[in-house]
């Protein structure tokens, strides 16, 4: 993913988290505010109950008909109790239904109300009001008010608990957002830093790559002239063909060409030119390119005519690199290089062929092995640092694989490529990547 996309994604996630947190808090606060409305409605029962009792008392001391007033007050209270249970809207204020955990308290309240209501109506209908009967109704009224107050208190406690929970929720969400924000900022800072460094590095390498590509390309022309001139000299003086110095010049031309190819293989888009080629011949040509020092013994598989579909020139580049790598690894010690081909005689289509180039070391440290095919990774004084990277690219273009490992004191480079090239699966060269 592009770094810029990562940053946008992270900012998006952060905005979503903050929005979600705010939504949760707003919802929680709104719910608690509704609970406040419910408490007010429950509290109103006390007022209504007192009103009824007051009217009853007035009926005792003032001889006039209070029946209608009491009737209205009882109906109001009944409606009020109904809303406490089921919720509703009073004067545009939303009242939520009573939470189920308060059902038993509600039942008590309702039962007391019904008892009080029947007592009041009985008294009014008997038209035989006296101080004792009103006093009796007052006792039930107090019980009703107590039941209402008890529910009010419990709802109040509940609301306080929710308020505390909301406060913790605020702290939790706030802290979480801050922590995530810090992590995001660090993360984004690292991405941007890496991206910036990468961009600078890429731009730098692009310039170097273009320059290297141009230079390598330009070297090929005089090298071509040199090669032609050597040919002409050798034709004019056939005795020179076997001259050691001529052989050395020819080999030097090939080696310069190989170095140039290393750069070009890495920095430019180059298509594979696939033909049927003898892999053993390619290996022998690669070995010829090298000056194998006397302290190193090299064994190669015998040349034969069995062919595979490949770009011979590029595979030669790969094997020269692997042999060069082996020679340089052994250095001045006595050592050996063994080149082996698996199932050499089994050239069935779609099968793979495995070429192992092993050298007697020293072995590659474990921590170095993962970096061996990385560009510019070299522990040697010679070479471009692109050889093994380019080699890996070339093998992968053939739909093959290359690996390196240590085994029994030997360093093994194992190349595995299909005997039949599959163009559809074949990779393409990177263009201009350095």
């Amino acid at each position, binding site marked *: 993913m592009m770094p810029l996309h990562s940053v946008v994604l992270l900012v998006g996630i952060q905005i979503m988290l903050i929005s979600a947190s705010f939504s949760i808090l707003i919802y929680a606060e709104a719910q608690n505010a509704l609970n406040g409305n419910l408490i007010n409605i429950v509290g109103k029962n006390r007022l209504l109950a007192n009103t009824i009792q007051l009217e009853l008392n007035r009926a005792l001391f003032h001889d006039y008909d209070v029946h209608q007033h009491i009737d209205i007050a009882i109906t109001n209270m009944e409606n009020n109790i109904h809303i406490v249970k089921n919720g509703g809207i009073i004067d545009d204020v939303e009242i939520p239904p009573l939470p189920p955990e308060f059902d038993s308290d509600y039942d008590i309240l309702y039962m007391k109300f019904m008892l009080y209501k029947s007592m009041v109506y009985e008294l009014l209908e008997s038209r035989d009001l006296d101080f004792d009967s009103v006093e009796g109704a007052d006792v039930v009224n107090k019980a009703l008010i107590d039941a209402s107050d008890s529910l009010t208190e419990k709802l109040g406690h509940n609301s306080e608990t929710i308020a505390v929970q909301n406060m913790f929720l605020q702290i939790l969400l706030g802290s979480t957002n801050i922590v995530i924000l810090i992590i995001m900022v660090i993360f984004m800072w690292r991405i941007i830093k890496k991206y910036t460094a990468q961009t600078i590095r890429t731009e730098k390498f692009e310039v170097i790559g273009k320059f290297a590509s141009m230079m390598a390309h330009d070297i090929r022309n005089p*090298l071509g002239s040199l090669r032609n001139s050597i*040919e002409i000299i050798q*034709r004019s003086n056939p005795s020179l063909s076997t001259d050691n110095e001529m052989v050395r010049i020819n080999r030097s031309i090939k080696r310069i060409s190989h170095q140039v190819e290393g750069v070009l293989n890495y920095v430019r888009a180059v*298509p594979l030119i696939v033909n049927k080629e003898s892999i053993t011949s390619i290996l022998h040509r690669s070995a010829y390119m090298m000056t194998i020092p006397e302290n190193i013994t090299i064994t190669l598989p015998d040349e034969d005519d069995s062919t595979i579909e490949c770009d011979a020139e590029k595979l030669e580049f790969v094997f020269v690199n692997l042999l060069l790598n082996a020679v340089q690894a052994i250095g001045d010690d006595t050592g050996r290089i063994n080149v082996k081909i698996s199932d050499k005689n089994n050239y069935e289509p779609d099968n793979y062929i495995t070429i192992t180039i092993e050298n007697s070391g020293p072995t590659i440290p474990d921590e170095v092995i993962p970096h061996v095919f990385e560009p510019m990774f070299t522990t040697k004084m010679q070479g471009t640092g692109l050889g093994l990277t380019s080699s890996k690219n070339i093998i992968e273009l053939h739909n093959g694989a290359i690996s390196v490992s240590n085994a029994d004191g030997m360093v093994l480079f194992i190349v595995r490529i299909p005997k039949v090239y599959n163009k559809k699966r074949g990779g393409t060269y990177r263009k201009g990547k350095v």
Partner: protein
Amino acid sequence: MTKAVKKCRILIIDDDSDFLESLHLRLMMDGYDVLTLPDGTDAVKQYGEFKPDIVFLDVRMPNISGYDVFLRLKAHSPDAKIYFTSGYALDEEEYAVARSQSLAGIITKPIDSSVLRKVLDSICQDHS
């Protein structure tokens, strides 16, 4: 009875005069009939007159690129046997187009004797 022998004709188009002359000489020593051009501006006309059996064409040249010369030559003579002598200057798209128009191949500088012989033998064997 001696079989009639026609000399294999080779056209080399390259802006590097040293390379051009040395390859010219190298091929002449082998008995080929060679024409050299320092750029591709006049390539189609010269091709028509010289009627080469094979063309060695540099890709990166001033005035007109080898790739454009290739397209012009192919438009004029679809059967022309053209080898690019510097495949690295081609991008993948150009290479794909060239392949679709029967590019004979790519040989890279410095040109190896065995590669040159193989290429010439494959094209010129009917004439020698």
